[in-house]
């Protein structure tokens, strides 16, 4: 069994469970939608204001839904002690991490794909004027967030206070990626030249690499001790 076959099997299993139950997508979608709608009523969203705050509102909606995704994904493994069954499989244990991470990322990207057009309609701000750059910003921001989040979810899944501990541990660690993603997305929405925003793109890339390498190195110990 190769590493990639292990990752593929775990992602396929998670997708299959989600297609059947639709628990994650429906919950995260509703949560994101509520966030976007509440911000729309809470602030004065005249054209200028809306454009300035668009990236912040969008990323708040994305991140809350991402946090829900990861917690739910690991609860499936906690039920009936399925995590032990995964750990017993003859695969590199980092394949479990990458499998869980990729499925969470797919769910988060799906929610982002649904919520972005709704945001555009509600706020009357086209956040996708430069679609490739914005998609890259969304993808890298989500990847960094989910990478750290998957690791934290693995640590906190067996804690009684996991709903509190997860975000408490996650948000400080993931702050650089969140700030960079908001700045890059916001700059694109405000029509700033991409050259001026490259510093944020570099921050996103560097932190993504660091998070992925650290997660790959420590995941084995984390799931054993948690």
């Amino acid at each position, binding site marked *: *069994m190769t590493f990639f*076959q*292990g990752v593929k*099997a*775990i992602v*396929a*299993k998670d997708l*299959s*469970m989600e297609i*059947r*139950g639709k628990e994650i997508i429906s919950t995260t979608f509703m949560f994101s939608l509520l966030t976007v709608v509440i911000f729309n009523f809470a602030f004065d969203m005249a054209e200028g204001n809306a454009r300035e705050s668009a990236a912040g509102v969008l990323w708040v909606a994305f991140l809350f839904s991402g946090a829900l995704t990861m917690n739910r994904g690991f609860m*499936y493994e906690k*039920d*009936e*002690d*399925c995590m*032990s*069954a*995964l*750990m*017993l*499989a*003859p*695969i*590199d244990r980092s394949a479990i991490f990458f499998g869980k991470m990729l499925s969470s990322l797919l769910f988060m990207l799906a929610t982002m794909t649904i919520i972005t057009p709704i945001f555009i309609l509600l706020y009357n701000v086209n956040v996708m004027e430069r679609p490739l750059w914005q998609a890259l910003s969304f993808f890298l921001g989500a990847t960094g967030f989910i990478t750290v989040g998957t690791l934290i979810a693995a640590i906190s899944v067996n804690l009684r206070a996991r709903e509190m501990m997860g975000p408490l541990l996650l948000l400080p660690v993931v702050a650089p990626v969140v700030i960079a993603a908001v700045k890059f997305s916001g700059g694109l929405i405000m029509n700033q030249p991409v050259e001026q925003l490259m510093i944020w793109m570099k921050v996103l890339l560097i932190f993504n690499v660091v998070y992925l390498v650290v997660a790959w190195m420590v995941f084995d110990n984390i799931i*054993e*001790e948690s």
Partner: protein
Amino acid sequence: MNDGNTAPLIEVTDVVKRFGKVVAVNGVSLKIDQGDAVVIFGPNGAGKTTLFRILAGLIRPDEGSLSVEGADVTYEYGETIRHRIGYISHQSMTYTQLSARENLLFFARLYGVADPDEKADALLKRVGLTSRADDITATFSRGMKQRLSIARALVHDPDIILLDEPFTGLDQHAAEILKDTLSHLHDERKTFIMVTHNIRVGLAISRRVVVQVAGKIAMTCDTDGLNPDEFTERYFTIVGGKHY
């Protein structure tokens, strides 16, 4: 079992495992040979499950060593040995959102089984779940989940079977299937190690008994010629409890 020339299949030496200030396993040494059938008895909190999880490679000991066929695997429990282990716990280790067949197919793929569909169908038939194969297991009774758990543990034809209180909560049908399966595994010279509180069942299907108390091995003996009633009396004397 061991002819003295070959290394034991599994050997733990002076193994210690702590959780904070609690010493769950305290200096345990144990040898298990190919084809051995060992039952571990002990009161709640004796460290049996922790020892089991060390044997399965799910956790690493703080002290001591663990070897498989003479190779030290204390800190690097390789993929090769995991492929040889089937683990049945009192939890089913199956996904309640998937059907019985989907669960078996998933684990068959994880273990690189050559023909997952054929294997899943054969195991579902063996544990009597063919008629419920496509139902999600959230609708299953405890006994049915445990029968599926047996199938899951055997999906890759392991030669070492670890059973952690496998009879807990089983209905009569599931208990008979499990006993029958263990009997077949015994005939195939598979090695199995079982933790159970059911002394009569444990003695009936094992060749060697280990009693673990407060993290330590308090007694070991062969089951040949062992009188269950006398053993039960000795067991309760060792663990310091009353036998009603």
